[in-house]
């Protein structure tokens, strides 16, 4: 037997309301402040939204820890993939390449 999260509909409504509020907050920040600040705020709010959607809607908080580790491993693969090329790609010249139109 295993454990499956039982859905609490009232709580899910509250979670949904919170998520919509965060989206509206990102929009309001964009419309009032704008620029790099609004982008930073929106990206931070996205991380919060991910945690909420993953934890509550996808019930990751009720899954075995290794499921979270499996998803984390996929993210780690991405980090490695880009970490090795990041400093090369951002230059006008790199290892065996030159930017066509710097």
């Amino acid at each position, binding site marked *: *037997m*295993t*454990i*499956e*999260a*039982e*859905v*609490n*509909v009232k*709580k*899910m*409504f509250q979670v*949904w309301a919170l*998520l*919509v509020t965060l*989206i*509206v907050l*990102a*929009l309001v920040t*964009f419309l009032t402040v*704008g620029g*790099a600040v*609004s*982008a930073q705020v*929106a*990206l931070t*709010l*996205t991380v919060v*939204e*991910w945690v909420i*959607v*993953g934890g509550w*809607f*996808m*019930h990751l*908080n*009720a*899954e*075995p820890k290794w*499921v979270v580790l*499996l*998803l984390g*491993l*996929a*993210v780690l*693969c*991405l980090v490695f*993939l*880009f970490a090795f090329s*990041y400093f090369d*790609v*951002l230059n006008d010249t790199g290892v065996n390449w030159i930017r066509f139109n710097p």
Partner: protein
Amino acid sequence: MSAVAREIRSNTGIPSGRLAMWLLLSGEIVIFGGLLVSYMMTRVAHPEWAEQTHHTNTLIGGVNAIILLTSDLFVVMAHAAAQKKDKDNAVKYIYLTIALGLLFLCIKAFEWTTDISEGFTLTSHLFWTYYYLTTGIHGAHIVVGIIALFAVSLGVKKGMNYQRVEIAGIYWHFVDMVWLIVFPLYYIAK
């Protein structure tokens, strides 16, 4: 959150279908992550792209985010109904989720049509290549989600395979999570 016991068919501690979905999603993380991180890196290297990003419609992006979040709520309610083996409500909420998915696609089609009519095509600038590629792949995932949810509803209608509602729901939530990062990257970071 309380918990209920449920029959399983694998040695991993979770049902096989859900295990398969988590494995699929770990692959999807690399697909979408690769695309989005590569966009972020290129965008950081090209501040002049601000000229192009200015033309995306932030309000439409925000409305679409709210539509997908609402569809998330409906799929959760379908799951709640499926847990109680309430097939009528489960099917009703699955259909509502599908309807919102279709609404998302209609709004996206309107947005694309407007962008293209204004001359922003796949080949007009690298930013638009990224934009159409990312939103296009995401849209394709929405279409797959709609088909999967409809297929699940056919079984639930017959009072079978209630557990599939949760599995399709996990996929649907993931597709929504992708939009939650697409929105700030393409519609707010200008």
